[in-house]
């Protein structure tokens, strides 16, 4: 499986509040850009997998598989919606990878899309909380920021992680986002900005949180042995891993560890035959600042509890030892939940093709994507490489 599948084209809309575009418009825009980038004709797309968390709730439209194939002009092509909360399109990428690696299809379009801004913030908060345990968590009033706040408070208690360290994650990602023309927020912020922003769920504040966004992303993947017919710079899928954990945070022995991440990373590293220290850059799921600290630890970049030190030392900034979220991450680039996993693959692909402009990580050979659903009840990790190895 390792190296058998390559990313041959990428596309994405700007992540933003797109008041004048519909979910289907956003998807088609990203898909056409990916097809153009891959120099693949529509008629050569053999299947589609679409990550989306909650179109049934946000825009009252389900059955996205056929809808989006139809609007992309290829009705007839097999097309499936994949749902795993905020990890939906990372999981769609996994399914696309499996279908190509299994020999079922030679060219596949994998996309992700979410349209969130058509409803009030309270409605979005409600819809997002359906990814928690509806009966035993969300019913009582806990929200997604609330669940990550519960994790943050335990992490601070158990390891001495500070409020300032959390703020530094947002500061770093906003700085990176200022170099990304497709980011929702392209402006730098200061630690004081974060610490003075309104509380959302103590101790997390507005500027610890990723925004509500609209957007779509798409990639074209193909069997590696035909990839060079389309592009001089295929990016290979070296490793893929996915796992689950208890749906409710309270059922986990230690809520500061996202076990799904540990398990998914183990599978991906093992398939790719790489170690955490071999990774040159990572796009991780910083839905809240604490989530990026957890990612450093659960992906094995540092030991459990030392994530705060990594941000203090600047190791994860552009120019650091392992730049994390050069795109701006979910925090600054935006987080249309169902599109995030594919947007991460788009960024890592651009980085490995040396096409990331002002945010380019130098000498990037191996990149990692980390996409989690809910409070970590699902996780999908991919490792991509410039060479097939």
């Amino acid at each position, binding site marked *: 499986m390792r190296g058998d599948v390559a990313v041959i084209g990428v596309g994405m809309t700007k992540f933003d509040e797109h008041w004048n575009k519909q979910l289907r418009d956003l998807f088609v825009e990203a898909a056409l850009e990916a097809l153009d980038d891959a120099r693949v004709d529509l008629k050569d797309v053999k299947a589609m997998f679409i990550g989306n968390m909650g179109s049934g709730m946000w825009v009252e439209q389900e059955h996205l598989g056929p809808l989006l194939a139809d609007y992309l002009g290829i009705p007839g092509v097999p097309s499936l919606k994949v749902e795993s909360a905020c990890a939906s399109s990372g999981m769609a990428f996994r399914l696309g990878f499996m279908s190509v690696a299994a020999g079922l299809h030679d060219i596949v379009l994998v996309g992700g899309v979410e349209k969130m801004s058509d409803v009030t913030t309270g409605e979005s908060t*409600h819809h997002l909380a359906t990814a928690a345990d509806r009966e035993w968590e969300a*019913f*009582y*009033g806990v929200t997604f920021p609330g669940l990550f706040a*519960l994790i943050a408070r335990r992490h601070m208690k158990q390891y001495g992680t500070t409020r300032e360290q959390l703020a530094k994650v947002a500061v770093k990602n906003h700085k990176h986002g200022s170099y990304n023309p497709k980011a929702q927020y392209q402006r730098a912020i200061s630690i004081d900005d974060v610490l003075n922003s309104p509380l959302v769920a*103590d101790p997390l504040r507005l500027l610890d949180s990723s925004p509500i966004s609209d957007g779509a992303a798409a990639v074209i993947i193909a069997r590696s042995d035909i990839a060079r017919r389309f592009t001089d710079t295929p990016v290979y899928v070296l490793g893929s891993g996915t796992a689950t954990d*208890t749906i409710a*945070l*309270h059922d986990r022995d230690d809520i500061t560890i996202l076990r799904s991440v540990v398990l998914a990373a183990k599978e991906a590293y093992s398939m790719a035959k790489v170690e955490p220290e071999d990774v040159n850059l990572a796009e991780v799921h910083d839905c809240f600042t604490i989530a990026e600290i957890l990612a450093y630890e659960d992906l094995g970049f540092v030991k459990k509890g030392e994530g705060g030190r990594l941000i203090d030392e600047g190791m994860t900034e552009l120019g650091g030892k392992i730049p994390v979220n050069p795109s701006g991450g979910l925090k600054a680039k935006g987080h249309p939940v169902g599109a995030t996993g594919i947007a991460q693959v788009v960024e890592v692909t651009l980085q490995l093709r040396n096409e990331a402009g002002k945010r380019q990580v130098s000498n990037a050979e191996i990149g990692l994507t980390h996409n989690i659903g809910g409070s970590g009840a699902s996780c999908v990790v991919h490792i991509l490489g410039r060479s097939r190895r």
Partner: protein
Amino acid sequence: MSNMSVPKAPRIWQLAERRYRLVGSKCLKCGRLFVGLRKVCPQCKSTEFEYVELSRRGKIYSYTVIRAPPMEREKYGPYIMAIVELDDGCRLTAEIVDCSSEEIDIGTEVEATFRKIGEESESGIIYYACKFRPVVKGV
């Protein structure tokens, strides 16, 4: 505003006993306790369970103040939510009431209290379940 995802009466009634009496599941093989009813133990895979009333006292394991509530609870905010570790070892998610967030911390002792959670609509049914409040010493 759409109200489509708010729980409906039949669903609430299915869960009423578990919520009103804090009924959980005890795995007869490994002893692990869970809120609600389970048929397979995620820890030891046993299918032997008994349904028990959970302890009504415990300690705060972690807590937060929800200042941006979901639509169905907008009029209640801000409010405190916590993971409570009950004296029998079971953990659950609950609202902490009858105090301010400055009066509690990780480790604060709390006890269950039967309260209103919300309502379906002005004419619809009212949801009830357990919230927790700090234990008042010497009472």
